[in-house]
């Protein structure tokens, strides 16, 4: 892995759908390998569109996007996307859902089964491997979706409003895995500061980068961090930035 090449780079990226209004305008962003970045902003500022652009699910109207030096579509094998909802296939068992990505990428069954078994153990769901999603609680479904995201061994994790997912995932573990680069989209300042090393604030109409804040707090982070004055200080700073972005 070439550390010098940023994991994600957006240069002058703009997006508008058909004849609709401009959603994103001139976004520049550089995210280094192993970084944990939150993108925050009021609703309708194009946060989720940024993730869709990085994953290649939609193309920019202008500008350039590189993921590990490749086009987003070519880099897809390195990316996992965690959606706000679990988005499981109801007709497949938990095991089959976790192995879906591997199955679509035509990974041989024995390897697949081994990976799935170890991931189910990781998220504590080995006992329901043969159950169908409708038999699971909301939290369990979310854990299945995380196991599925990790199955393809991503190097870039994109998470859209991932609170439910993160509640189910050990945050410490998330930070231990330095081989990941993670980008979270959220509207909660507290979560953004708690989870990431950097917070990018977007301003709306059209979406543009308003400010960036470093979060120089030690990792791994534990829940007690939320009671520290340094944490409060950064949250206050980012909140001000967000208010300013709204007024901008």
């Amino acid at each position, binding site marked *: 892995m070439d550390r010098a090449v940023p994991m994600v780079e957006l240069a002058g990226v703009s997006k508008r759908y058909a004849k609709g209004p401009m959603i994103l305008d001139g976004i520049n962003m550089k995210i280094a390998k192993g970084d944990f970045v939150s993108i925050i902003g009021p609703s309708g500022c194009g946060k989720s569109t940024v993730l*869709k652009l990085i*994953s290649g*699910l939609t193309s920019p109207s202008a500008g350039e996007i590189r993921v590990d030096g490749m086009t987003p579509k070519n880099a*897809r*094998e390195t*990316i*996992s*996307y965690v*959606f706000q*909802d679990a*988005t499981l*296939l*109801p*007709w497949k068992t938990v095991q089959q859902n976790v192995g*879906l*990505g591997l199955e*679509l*990428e035509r990974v041989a069954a024995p390897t697949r089964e081994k990976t799935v078994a170890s991931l189910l153990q990781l998220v504590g769901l080995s006992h329901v491997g043969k159950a*169908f*999603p*409708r038999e699971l609680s909301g939290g369990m479904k979310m854990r299945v979706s995380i196991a599925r995201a990790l199955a*393809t061994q991503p190097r870039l994790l994109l998470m859209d409003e991932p609170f439910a997912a993160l509640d189910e995932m050990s945050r410490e573990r998330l930070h231990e895995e330095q081989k990941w680069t993670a980008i979270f989209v959220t509207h909660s300042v507290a979560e953004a500061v708690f989870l990431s090393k950097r917070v990018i604030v977007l301003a709306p109409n059209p979406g543009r980068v308003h400010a960036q804040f470093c979060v120089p707090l030690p990792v791994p982070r534990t829940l007690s961090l939320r009671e520290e004055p340094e944490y409060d200080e950064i949250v206050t700073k980012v909140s001000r930035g967000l208010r300013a972005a709204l007024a901008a």
Partner: protein
Amino acid sequence: MLKKRVVTIANTLGVFLALLAFWQVALWVLRVPAYMLPSPAAVARAVVQRFPLLWDALLITAAESAGGLAAAIVAGVSIALIFAQFHWVRRTLYPYTLIVQTVPIIAIAPLILMWIGAGTVSVGVIAFIISVAPIIFNTTQGLISVDENLVHLFLMHNATPAQILFRLRLPNAIPSLFVGIRIASGLAVIGAITGELYAGSSRVGQGGLGYTILYASSQLQTDYLFALVLAAIVLGFAFFGAVAFLEWHFLHEWHESARPPEVEAEA
């Protein structure tokens, strides 16, 4: 649970017996002649006495309906797959499937008879025409209404269009497909009987329920006519039951519709 089921069956049976009693009493009181309305006992006698003929007619109609329905499922699902995959084909041809849905089957039955000739094939074709539209409509709906995030998930794994169609859209459409088949199964029986009224038999004395109904009616054999109507009802029930069983078989593990409600509504 078992007790509740026994009570339900007893209630249904009770209503049936009450209806029979009412029918018999009405005949006595109103003195209706037998050729207008036969007694329940006469209908039962007709069933027993003419059972071999009745059974043959039932089997012929069953085969025609099943053939028409099977063809409607194969054609309906194939058309729906094409509609789901190619928007422009759907937009262009959807109005024409509406024509199949709205064409009065009675009006086109004589045409089919003229083109294909009397007999089982014509009747099967009529059953097919009347039952294909609900399968096309429901399956297409199921194929295109897939959670957008699931499509994105497949795309993120570089899934091919064929993988998205057969591994995502098609399984997603199975519950809607069964809604279509359930409607179509009733229509196929109605279509077959209607078809038989026109194109019932290529040989005298051998035909399905519709053909035999026409024959019994011309002979004023009202008790036999009733027995034939009863057989048509039984056939409709059998089709519905078979489809319900298949639906349960394919869906009960994962789909809400095929499971008994866990909390009974408070009545």
